[in-house]
């Protein structure tokens, strides 16, 4: 088995390289993705090796990037577009929601829209406004889109492959503050399907559900809780649409308690959806109400306050304690 230790950023880069190499119809598009290799260097070296015709620097126009990617997909290409930062996706939101998400259904399945929209998302890097947001629920709410986020290098590598190969449009949220975290990548062992959750840590007293950047925080919380004699299971959701409710149900039927953790605002967030569905499915197994930990119903704060805004170890453990107190 080929094992390689690499950062999430490198895993994404290797994955995109493999996608370009495997299928001549795959294209990379976005602002600064060419010579610069993207502001996070995720596409580093790809234009040099695959040419300007495959790795395309675009005008600074997000609606144009997604809109032309739709046209290229209709022509048989498989564009992977980069939105430079989470808060910059909104000029393209119209194209994503009104066009990309719906075109396959409108054509009664006669055409396919294999477009991947990559979005570095989330906070924790001390950035300025519009560079730290978690808008995943806005996309997950839209039928026709699939929304995923890897939390580790192996998933980054494989989920990107799977996203590029998917005939559905995929919104691929990359946890930007984890880009430099390293992990083992098994380059020839294909993991489960894109929408399957994975158990990041087993436990028996309570289930923590997270995805993307918060998986690491939850694993740290579980480790800290263990020192207090609590056995916490951590589920890495991987896909926010669809959601692997079966995996959450299995875990909650075992532990009886569920806390959902994400960076996005709690209000109308993915935690609300999970809490509602799991309450329906597991009402008689639950020992406590499903609790949520996440951002506040306020604009993402200036960088000096983001540690207060983002769920950290203490806020997760506080929720664990509250759940266990029932």
């Amino acid at each position, binding site marked *: 088995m080929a094992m390689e230790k690499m950062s999430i950023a490198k895993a994404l880069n290797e994955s995109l390289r493999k996608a370009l190499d495997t299928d001549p119809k795959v294209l990379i598009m976005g602002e600064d993705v060419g010579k610069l290799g993207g502001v996070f260097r995720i596409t580093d070296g790809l234009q040099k090796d695959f040419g300007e*015709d495959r790795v395309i620097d*675009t*005008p600074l*126009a997000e*609606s*144009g990037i*997604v*809109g*032309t*990617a*739709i*046209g*290229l*997909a*209709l*022509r*048989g*290409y498989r564009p992977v577009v980069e939105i430079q930062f989470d808060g910059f996706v909104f*000029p393209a939101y*119209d*194209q994503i929601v*009104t*066009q990309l998400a*719906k*075109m*396959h*259904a*409108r*054509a*009664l*399945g*006669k*055409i*396919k*829209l294999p477009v991947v929209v990559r979005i570095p998302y989330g906070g924790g890097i001390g950035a300025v406004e519009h560079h730290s947001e978690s808008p995943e629920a806005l996309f997950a709410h839209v*039928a*026709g889109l*699939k929304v995923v986020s890897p939390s580790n290098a192996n998933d980054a590598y494989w989920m990107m492959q799977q996203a590029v190969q*998917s*005939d*559905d449009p995929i919104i691929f949220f990359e946890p930007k503050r984890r880009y430099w975290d390293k992990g083992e990548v098994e380059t020839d062992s294909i993991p489960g399907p894109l*929408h399957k959750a994975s158990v990041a840590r087993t436990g028996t007293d309570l289930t923590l559900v997270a995805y993307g950047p918060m998986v690491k925080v939850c694993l740290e919380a579980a480790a800290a809780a263990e020192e207090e004699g609590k056995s916490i299971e951590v589920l890495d959701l991987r896909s926010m*649409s*669809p*959601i*692997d409710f079966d995996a959450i149900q299995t875990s909650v039927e075992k532990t009886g308690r569920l806390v959902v953790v994400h960076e996005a605002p709690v209000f109308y967030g993915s935690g609300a959806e999970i809490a509602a569905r799991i309450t329906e499915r597991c009402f008689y197994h639950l020992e406590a109400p499903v609790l949520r930990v996440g951002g506040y119903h306020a604009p993402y704060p200036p960088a000096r306050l983001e540690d207060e805004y983002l769920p950290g170890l203490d806020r997760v453990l506080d929720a664990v304690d509250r759940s266990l107190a029932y």
Partner: protein
Amino acid sequence: MTVESTAARKPRRSSKRTSAVKTTAKTSAKTPQSSEPELVQLLTPEGERVEHPDYSIDLTADELRGLYRDMVLTRRFDAEATALQRQGELGLWASLLGQEAAQIGSGRALRDDDYVFPTYREHGVAWCRGVDPTNLLGMFRGVNHGGWDPNSNNFHLYTIVIGSQTLHATGYAMGVAKDGADSAVIAYFGDGASSQGDVAEAFTFSAVYNAPVVFFCQNNQWAISEPTEKQTRVPLYQRAQGFGFPGVRVDGNDVLACLAVTRSALERARRGEGPTLVEAFTYRMGAHTTSDDPTKYRADEERASWEAKDPILRLRAYLEKEGAADEAFFTALDEESEALGKRVREAVRAMPDPDPIAIFDHAYADGNPLVDEERAQFAAYQASFADSAEESK
């Protein structure tokens, strides 16, 4: 005085044709604030054939009759659809009345391997592509959101959000260029859509990547109730210059000029010389849609002045003058029109409501467990009614 009323009161006369009818790229910026539209015209409103230094056309009598037939049948189809809406058979209809020349002229300039990205009013272009007109009615009847296979006639689905499709056309054209094909792509949009950011972005992308796309703007003078002057302070075709490609304004009620100008723009795209903006200066004689009431915002005289420029009457006058069509042709066409109207009427009335379970069809290409779950719940719920009906028997 508005731009459009000026245009309406001063129809271009054939005597001015050689001195004033200059609309190619090199001369397009000559009068940036002019309210007098410069139009490429090959057929006057009176049906007189005129020449243009940059756009010549030589059609056989058969071809001329073909264009006339296309316009008449398209108008008949459109009238039938409007009537069907009034009878409650369609929820809405967007009439193309008055824009037949712009659509048939540009539509007949296309090759089979070209690709069309329409708005929601391109019934005449769809006709030229060989799309069965009854296919266009599904979305207006409310049985689907499009429903046809865009690749079977290279005619994309109608696009309701205005301007979005100009980017799809540009991306598709970028793909055509990558494939090394010599097809061209045409994007239709209106004067209202020209205000959308997507249209500006499509101009930018197409120019930067030299995409083989023709932007065909039907300036029908009104974006629902807003006149063109609420969209732009310069003639629309002049926008192209700022993006680095040519813009041409053509008499949109002149089918010959629309054909010649579009053909020229498509050939330019095929040669790898990039995009062209064609502004077809025309008039929407009816309402924006059947939900609209144009009497609230425009004067009767305006419509009357444009009726004098009717694209169908104009070509008919020319056909008669030239002896290119006889009475038998017109009589046969009348019969064909009525037959089309009848076919459309019957097809719409026979159009079944979709199976409710179709709500879940095609949401995703690769499937989705959430959709599967909800489909199963929905099916069970529907079946529960069937069961109770059985029991009550």
